[in-house]
């Protein structure tokens, strides 16, 4: 159960981002640039880095969403991913 009144029905960071619109874009944009935009290695090759770090923090939602994105084409993952 969340420690504060976060919007219901959104898992993980999606709820935290929806709570405070002022911080939503700047908090989300670095991950979009680092993990989704064209680069080397390709997006699917960068998600395992995020998944590995999330695993070391035992952050279940972050690890699983990164693992899903790794298996999807980049555009599909970008559309589905909320982190």
């Amino acid at each position, binding site marked *: 159960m969340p*420690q504060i009144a976060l919007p219901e029905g959104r898992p993980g960071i999606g709820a*935290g981002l929806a709570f405070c619109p002022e*911080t939503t874009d700047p908090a989300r944009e*670095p991950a979009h640039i680092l993990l989704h935009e064209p680069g080397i290695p390709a997006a699917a090759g960068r998600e395992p880095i995020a998944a590995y770090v999330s695993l070391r923090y035992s952050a279940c939602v972050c690890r699983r969403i990164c693992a899903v994105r790794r298996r999807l084409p980049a555009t599909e993952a970008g559309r589905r991913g909320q982190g």
Partner: protein
Amino acid sequence: MPHIALPEGLPGIRGALAFRPETAKPLNELVEVLLFGPHTLTPGERELIATYVSYLNDCHFCQSIHGAIAAAHLDGDEELVRRVKADFQHANVSEKLKALLVIAGKVQRGGKNVTAADVEEARSLGATDLEIHDTVLIAAAFCMYNRYVDGLGTWQPQDEAMYRERGKVVAREGYIQGSKSYLPVATTR
């Protein structure tokens, strides 16, 4: 010496931000909202949270510059900044801020350390949900900024006067305006 070829002459995070302007923009925007924009916590209180987390992460550049910015917001009270880092429970800050610093310290050790009792204590002392949210996000973001600065081996001068002067500039102008002196024009607004 930095681990990669960062622009020379820019200490701490400034060198890393100038290296990658695309990520500099949202990183500066985030810290602007969290520490400088309108808020029910004062800029001095928010800078103290960032300074404390940076101190716990042993990031010399971040605890020095944010300590200097905090002091600039607090009428130059550098002793208060030192006290908050060393023993905030006996520092001259509000009981609400002490409860928020407890939460920030727990986030620094790992987000799962924050308990419902910690949050209830902050709330009983007048903290709003937004103040609790932003305390957690400041602490989490500064764990990122601290590791960004240290993980690249950035240049971190020992000159206290440099931090003091830069702290006054950032306290006056904020992070986005303050970044215009070292970021390419196209990436600032």
